[in-house]
Every structure is written in C-alpha cells, then in structure tokens.
C-alpha cells in the first residue's frame, strides 16, 4: 500500500539573510511517485531539493521521509540519494569505483558489490564500462553513471537536480523516456527538479509549480494544463490568452462574463476556484479556439477579428488575430488535419471569426 505522505514537507521555510528562498511550504509526496518541482530559476525548487538531501537545513518547519523527521539528520545518514546537475562523477576514480563508492559501509563482500555494480551497468545499458576512466565518458554516459551510483544504494527517494539540462535535445528526449521507464522498473520515489515544463509534463505523475518560494499548484500534468488554479500557473505551463472581465450572472449552467475583447463569454469550465461575482479573468488556450474565414452560424462565444500574422509549422499553424478592445493579438493554434496546399496570406488582413466551447473558457481570479 503506497503511502500518501511518504515525503511530508510541513510549513517549511528557508531564508538566506532577508531572502525567503522557500516560504512556508507544505505538501506530501506519495510513495513510488515521479514528482517534479517546476519553476523558473530562483523559485526555490533547488533549495527545497537540497533540504530533502540534507545540504540545507530548513529555517522553519520540518521534513519527514517515511515518517521520520529529518531535522538535524546529516546528508550521509538520510535514506535519499541525489543525481547532481553537474553529475559530480569522481574524476580520480574509474566507472566501477564511482558506482561502488557508496557501498563501502553496506557490509557486503567485495564479490557481492562487484556483482551489483555489473547489474547496475546492465541497467543503465553500459555493460563492460567498469574500467573506463571518468574523463573518457560522454555527457549522456556520465548522467547514467551518476544515476547508477545513486540507485545502487537503493534509496527510499532519488533526488534529481536538472539532470538532463546539459544534454542536447535529441539525447534529452531519449533520456526522458528512459528515466521514466527506469523509475517504473525500480519503483523508487523520484523527486525531479526542472525549469523545463515540457520535460516535467513528459515524465511526471504530479508536478508542483513553484514561484517566489511558494508552491502555486500541485497536480497531474493534464490538470495543470487544463485546470490551472491561478494565472501564474496558466501562464507558465504552455501558452494562454487572458481577457479581463466582470461576472454578469448565470444563464443556465453557464457563467456569463462581460470581457474586453471577447464580448460576452459563456463559461461552464469547472475545477478552478473562481469567485462568482466581480472582476475575473477569462483564459483560453490557443488550440481551444476555432478559426474560420466565413462567419459561423452561432450566437454565443464568437468574436470577429482581423488576421495579423500566420505561421505554418507543419503539423499545426499559429495565427495571431487582432480583435477590438484588446491591445495584444490573440494567439490561436490550429491542427493541420487536412493537407494545406496553399499558405494563408496574413498580409491581406482577412476578416476571421473565432469560436470556442463554453467548457474551454477558464475563469481565473484577478
């Protein structure tokens, strides 16, 4: 039975002088979960990870791992291991000795350790690499060896500090899938720090979006994208259009909002905790719009605009549509399900109509 609060972060803060790097954070991480901390640099995600590893002590609050409070427990006594951003492969040791580094106190015989190291080399798909020197390795190989060196310890939690950041795009995408498969294999709880939202979305069971030392929202990738709770999350994950507005009342199921730009918007989008009256922001993702060059036969959730720019990206096209009452053009993305034999000429500034579903128009605070 997987525990809900395998890692429990309770009212934890970390101050560096007057800077609150982590500001009163509380949440739980489940056993066996691939959990990501996502945010721009300086949001506190790395500080939080380093507090889990024991390299930083919380200024306030406490962290529990598998029910055990970690306050005052030094890094070498914690049931966690870390894969560093720089990989930190010991340059004076060969691959075998790097992986076996943490096994000195395991109580296992040398033969047993050697066997486990070989198993690890199999697992990371580098069999026979034991005798290689640390300086004979490529970036991807160093990354795998850092992983093996941590996993051989069979930690309760594996911490990963942007481990894919230094790899090129192709290798990074391959490693994302491998890392995810490996995590399912070994069943260890992974806590993964990244600033790359696509990376977090690809691999994670759940993501905590952080900003300014606070956690904004913790959810599955789907929920973060489709039901962002606050504007910052909606803005950070993917692209989104915001329209300021005011709630006018209800019409059946739908909330009616008078907006600048989109006119009257009917929304039935659920999930977000938005107020039921007063000022509000309507948020719509680019792909939730339908764009048409003829006036559609609908009365609600439609707006007329002028095509300002178009970009053909192969699988999809991006359009930028200028509408009345809004300074910035609206970003619209449309799948090119049919072959487009003729490019759309945005310079003609054609009239276009945007429509959207009642369910797609998110209502967000502020």
């Amino acid at each position, binding site marked *: 039975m997987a525990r809900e609060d395998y890692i429990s972060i309770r009212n934890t803060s970390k101050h560096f002088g007057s800077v609150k790097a982590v500001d009163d954070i509380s949440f739980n991480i489940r056993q066996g979960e691939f959990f990501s901390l996502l945010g721009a640099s300086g949001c506190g995600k790395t500080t939080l990870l380093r507090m889990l590893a024991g390299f930083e002590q919380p200024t306030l609050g406490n962290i529990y791992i598998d029910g055990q409070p970690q306050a005052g427990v030094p890094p070498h006594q914690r049931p966690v291991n870390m894969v560093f951003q720089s990989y930190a492969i010991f340059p004076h040791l060969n691959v075998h000795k790097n992986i076996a580094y*943490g096994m000195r*106190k395991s109580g296992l015989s040398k033969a047993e350790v050697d066997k486990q190291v070989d198993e690890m080399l199999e697992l990371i798909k580098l069999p026979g690499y034991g005798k290689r020197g640390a300086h004979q390795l490529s970036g991807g190989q160093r990354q795998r060896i850092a992983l093996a060196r941590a996993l051989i310890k069979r930690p309760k939690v594996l911490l990963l500090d942007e481990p894919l950041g230094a790899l090129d795009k192709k290798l990074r995408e391959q490693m994302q899938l491998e890392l995810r498969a490996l995590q399912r294999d070994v069943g260890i709880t992974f806590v993964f720090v990244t600033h790359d939202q696509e990376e977090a979305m690809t691999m994670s069971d759940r993501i905590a979006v952080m900003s300014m030392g606070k956690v904004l929202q913790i959810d599955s990738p789907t929920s973060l994208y489709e039901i962002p709770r606050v504007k910052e999350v909606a803005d950070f994950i993917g692209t989104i259009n915001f329209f300021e507005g005011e709630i006018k009342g209800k019409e059946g199921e739908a909330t009616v909002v008078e907006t600048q730009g989109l006119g009257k918007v009917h929304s039935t989008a659920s999930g977000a905790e938005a107020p039921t009256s007063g000022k509000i922001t309507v948020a719509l993702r680019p792909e939730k719009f339908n764009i048409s060059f003829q006036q559609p036969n609908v009365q609600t959730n439609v707006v007329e605009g002028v095509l300002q720019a178009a970009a053909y990206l192969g699988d999809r096209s991006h359009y930028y549509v200028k509408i009345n009452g809004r300074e910035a053009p609206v970003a619209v993305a449309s799948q090119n399900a049919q072959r487009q034999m003729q490019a759309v000429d945005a310079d003609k500034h054609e009239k276009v109509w945007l429509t959207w579903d009642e369910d797609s128009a998110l209502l967000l605070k502020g």
Partner: protein
Amino acid sequence: MSDTVSKAGSDVRGSEAPRVVESKHEGHSWTGEAPLFIYAVWYLAFLYIPVLFLPLFSFNDSIYVAFPLKGFTLQWYADMLENPALLRALENSVKVGAAVAIASTILGIFAAKAMTRYRLPGKGPLTSFIMLPLVVPGIILGIALLVISNTVGVDLSLYTIAMAHTLVAVPFAMLVLMSRLEGFDKSLEEASLDLGENAFQTFLRVTLPLAWPGILASTLLTFTISFDEFILAFFLAGNEVTLPIYIWSQLRFPNRLPMVLSLGACILVASFFIVTFSEVIRRRGVGTQSGSAI
C-alpha cells in the same frame, strides 16, 4: 598553397604572389618581435648572470672571488663536506623546513577548505588576518616574536624558528590550496556526503586525492620559504642555527667565502630540481582536472 601555385603555374603573377607574402611576413616579425626578444635576453641575463657567478667561482682555485680565474678545483666542495658546523646547520634547516612545510600545509588546507566551502560570517576580515604576516615587515615580526618569547619564557631554539616560519608560510600554503580547491566542483564533496560518507571520510576519499597536486606544491613552497628565511631565524635562533645564519656568520672570514659559494651552488641546483618537480606535478594535476571537466 602548392595547389594554387601549380594550378596558376602558367600565370606569372600567380607564382610571384606567395613570395611577396613571405617576405612581408618576415619583415613584420623583425619589426614586431625582435626587440622583444632582445629585451627578454637582457632581462634573463640581468637576472641570472650574477647568480651564475656562484657556481663559477665555486670551482675556482683561489680564495679571492675575482677574475681572472686561476684553475679548476673541487677543494671547496670537499671543505664543505668536511665542515661539521655547516652540516649541522644544513641538518637544522632541513628539520625546520620539513616541520614548517608539514604544519603550514595542514593548517593551510583546513583554512582553504573553510574559506572555499563554508558560508563563514566575517570571511573577508578573517582572510585579511591570515594574510597579514605577508605584509608585516620581517624585522617587526621578528622583534615582536622575540619580545613574546621572552615574556612567556620560551627558550629560543629551532622550535621558535619553526613556529615563526609557520606563521609566514601559512598564507602561502592557504593561497596555493585555495586555488586548488576552487578548481574542482563543490558537488563532488556533496556527492560523497550524499553517498553515505561523513565529512572526515569525504575529506580523505575525495578532497585529499583531488587536492594532492596543490598539497605537494604547498609543501615544497613552504619548505623553500623556511629554508631561505633569514630575519626571523636571526631573531629567534638559540644555540642552534639554520643555514642562512651560518652563511651570514661565515662572511666575516674571507678564506671561507669559496666554501660558501660552493654551498650556494649546491642549494641553487637543489632548488632548481625542486621547483621543476613541483611545476611538473602541478601541470599534471591541472591536466587531469581539465580532462575530467569535459
């Protein structure tokens, strides 16, 4: 270039062109680099010719240090080896130097580790205090240490010299080791802690192996500093003297001068090998480090 020439073989201008370029290049190197070269030769001559007089006159068969040279002899070297007072002073200097090298390198590595790895309150002033002996004139430091020794009631001996030398050698050791520790990734030590080794084991298994070229360089440097230090040793020596003080005391006797010169020649050769050795070690250390950083 040969390709273009053969292709343009029939074209007269084509075969001329490379020659023009070459002579132009020569002219440039003459006006640009030759004066620098001459300057460098003069500079090195000015620096080393006086020093080279030492070995030269140490083989001269005359007690007077003057031209013309009289003839070749190894007499002065033999005198040197048969002089018990000199050998005693040499032994003292090596003892003091070894003690200083070990003590200041140990103190230096802990100081360097603290300065480069921890968030210390007042790190700036602390560094300045450790560096202070570098800028305090030796004679002031010597008098101060002599006064303290008398006040506390410590007898002057090789120990007092070694302590004084350690004081001035620690800043050098710390600087050498700080640059070494700053040269390697801090997360290597964190990785060791993370993998279950405590701070001391991490120091033994990661910090020391990675810092050893710096440790060796620091040991050799601080040994040299102690070996040729005169002023502090002069103030703090008891009955036993170190080599520089012995040499100083021999200058009163003109007939001992050639022997001092041969001693100087030996020290020169020994220093040359020590410095070369430490430089080779240092470069090798840098080589492995940059190799691993890729």
